[in-house]
């Protein structure tokens, strides 16, 4: 008798390897002294150290949030090491000077810092653990006045911009993990696109976690000045680990009048093994502010990795006629848990937002959509459209939806559509009868389910995302 849909065996995590590089690690635990050490190692100005310390003091008064629909053992924040950098990070002139071991890691991951990327028009600011080790296409970007560099470099070379915008979208007091990040953030990416400039290429950054038990606290700040346009791609893969690793990043986007920021993520952190051992805790605060009129911020995310995902890329629609978008695919398999969604906060007149969320649950995975649509009293004519679809594979997984809608202006239009479906035996058999394997069938059905989101991704990411989806769900159908 057919048991129909069962749990599959996960393919070994492809990117599970550890690079043997001499790391400069701060001893575990957090104190003002550790923060001063981090700041000193990075030769930071006094104002930034003060900002970190304020964040730390605030963090001490805060409690880890437990409202998300996820479950995990308590995190011992004193057992985490808050800084890790490959040693010998004096400025490099060329790739020849980069530790060959690092370059090999990038190669294994298919990340090329060389001409290939130049030819494909992608500038890569690769982040290895916490310190940026190589940047390409700088000259090309510089010609257009675009600043794209590591966060640390931005602090040194563009302190006024950093000072003006750091914490302007996600204040250090925002939430527990954002406060922690603000206190200890190691490095990250910084981008500024000046007035009227359309960034000439897609920008991308690869984040990875390498040192064992080293928390990752990336900080990204992207600013599109008036009438500027930028598209940013973020891809994540992490070497395999047996202990859980905390990742608490903060991403802030600012769009001034008439500006457009598009931020795309493919997240494939290590999800733990098929028994739920190991994997990354991905507790991320991502938020954008449409500060000026007629600006637009668009988030697209494909979340296939991490043991636990907690993130709500949001948009504050402050400028009149501004537009916020959130397109999301979140996949959980085995014992993965995800609580993800968005917040759209309508402040300005005629602000519009679109939310398309596709949640896929397989194995014993638990997937929650959590979204808030808030229309404030002055947001005349605000509109929101939300579509929230869940797909279940097998009968041991779960899909949950927590939509919050608060409307304080009676000229607003808010729509919410939701559906839950199950990959049917009949669909799989139909595909098989046409000659496709079960895995091809699942991959095809799921890709079809996610089509509206995939088509928002830049081309090279769309292909990768589709492949990742297939890999993540491999074996989820017997």
């Amino acid at each position, binding site marked *: 008798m*057919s048991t129909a849909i069962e749990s599959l065996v996960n393919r070994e995590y492809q990117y599970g390897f550890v690079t043997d590089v001499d790391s400069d690690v701060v001893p575990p635990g957090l104190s003002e002294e550790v923060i001063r050490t981090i700041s000193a190692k990075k030769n930071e100005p006094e104002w930034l150290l003060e900002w970190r310390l304020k964040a730390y003091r605030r963090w001490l008064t805060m409690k880890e949030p437990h409202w998300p629909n996820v479950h995990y053992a308590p995190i011992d924040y004193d057992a985490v090491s808050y800084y890790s950098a490959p040693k010998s990070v004096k400025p490099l002139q060329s790739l020849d000077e980069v530790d060959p071991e690092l370059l090999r890691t990038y190669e294994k991951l298919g990340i090329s810092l060389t001409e290939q990327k130049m030819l494909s028009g992608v500038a890569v600011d690769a982040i290895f653990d916490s310190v940026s080790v190589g940047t390409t296409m700088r000259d090309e970007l510089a010609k257009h006045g675009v600043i794209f560099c590591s966060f640390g470099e931005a602090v040194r070379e563009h302190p006024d911009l950093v000072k003006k915008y750091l914490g302007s979208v996600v204040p250090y007091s925002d939430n527990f993990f954002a406060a922690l990040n603000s206190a200890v953030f190691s490095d990250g990416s910084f981008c500024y696109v000046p007035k009227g400039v359309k960034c000439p290429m897609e920008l991308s950054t690869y984040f990875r976690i390498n040192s064992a038990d080293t928390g990752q606290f990336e900080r990204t700040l992207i600013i599109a000045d008036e009438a500027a346009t930028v598209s940013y791609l973020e891809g994540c893969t992490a070497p395999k680990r047996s202990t859980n690793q905390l990742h608490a990043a903060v991403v802030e986007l600012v769009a001034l009048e008439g500006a457009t920021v598009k931020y795309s993520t493919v997240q494939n952190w290590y999800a733990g093994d098929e028994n739920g051992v190991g994997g990354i805790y991905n507790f991320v605060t991502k938020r954008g502010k449409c500060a000026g009129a007629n600006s637009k911020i668009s988030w697209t995310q494909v979340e296939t990795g991490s043991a636990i995902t907690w993130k709500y890329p949001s948009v504050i629609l402050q400028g009149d006629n501004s537009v916020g978008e959130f397109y999301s695919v979140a996949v959980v398999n085995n014992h993965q848990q995800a609580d993800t969604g968005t917040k759209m906060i309508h402040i300005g007149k005629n602000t519009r937002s679109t939310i398309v969320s596709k949640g896929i649950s397989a194995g014993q995975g638990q997937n929650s959509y959590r979204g808030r649509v808030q229309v404030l009293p002055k947001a005349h004519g605000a509109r929101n459209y939300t579509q929230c679809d869940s797909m279940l594979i097998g009968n041991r997984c779960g899909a949950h939806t927590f939509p919050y809608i608060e409307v304080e202006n009676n000229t607003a239009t808010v729509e919410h559509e939701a559906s839950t479906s199950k990959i049917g035996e009949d669909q799989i058999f139909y*595909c098989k009868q046409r*000659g496709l394997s079960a895995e091809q069938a699942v991959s095809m059905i799921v890709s079809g*389910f996610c089509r509206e989101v995939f088509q928002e991704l830049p081309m090279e990411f769309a292909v990768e995302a589709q492949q990742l989806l297939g890999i993540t769900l491999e074996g989820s159908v017997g």
Partner: protein
Amino acid sequence: MLDIQSLRAGIAEREILKGIDLVVNPGEVHAVMGPNGSGKSTLAQVLAGNPAYEVLGGTVQYRGEDLLELEPEVRAQRGIFLAFQYPVEIPGVTNAYFLRSALNEVRKARGEEEIDPLEFLDLVEERMKLVEMEPSMLNRSVNQGFSGGEKKRNEILQMAVLEPSLAILDETDSGLDIDALRIVAGGVNALRRPDNATIVVTHYQRLLNYIVPDYVHVLAGGRIVRSGGKELALELEERGYDWVLDAA
């Protein structure tokens, strides 16, 4: 081509097929008829390898192989095609993508190269004419929002592209008006060749006015109770099934 002996099969521990014997040779069209619940669709599903059905006994040889040992996708790759009674919807997957993926799997199994996308488009557009389908149907999601007739035509289109050795049409006439019936049957007839065979599963005789069978079998209570030429179908139409059942 196909040699079924004493085939017994069921679903959810209920035996439906209670010993089927049937031999199909290349070039032949066999009609399997019978009242509701006689096991016609079960036979079609079992031959295609639907895992919801369990084989309880008997053998099925297909081109010298033990068919029952093969996975459903392998059966498809070896040339068995089932036109579904209820074609399944796959939202977000275009008809073109689905069909090209299927064709490529079948070609790979035959040791052929994958088809070039442009070549595929030429092929599929030509075959669409057979079933009078608009090319725009290629960009719609598989069967989603299709009318009953469109779904059935789409099944025949898939068959026309995949060029199976053994096609099994499961109640392809159900829910079709007379024009759609004529189109679907026309497509099936155009695909008849001396080296392929067709099993037409149907409740009504009317489809057999268009697809003329070489043999007609009456299935009742999980057994073939009577076999004959095409005139048997006409007799059934006239006299109903009770007459055969009583005789059996």
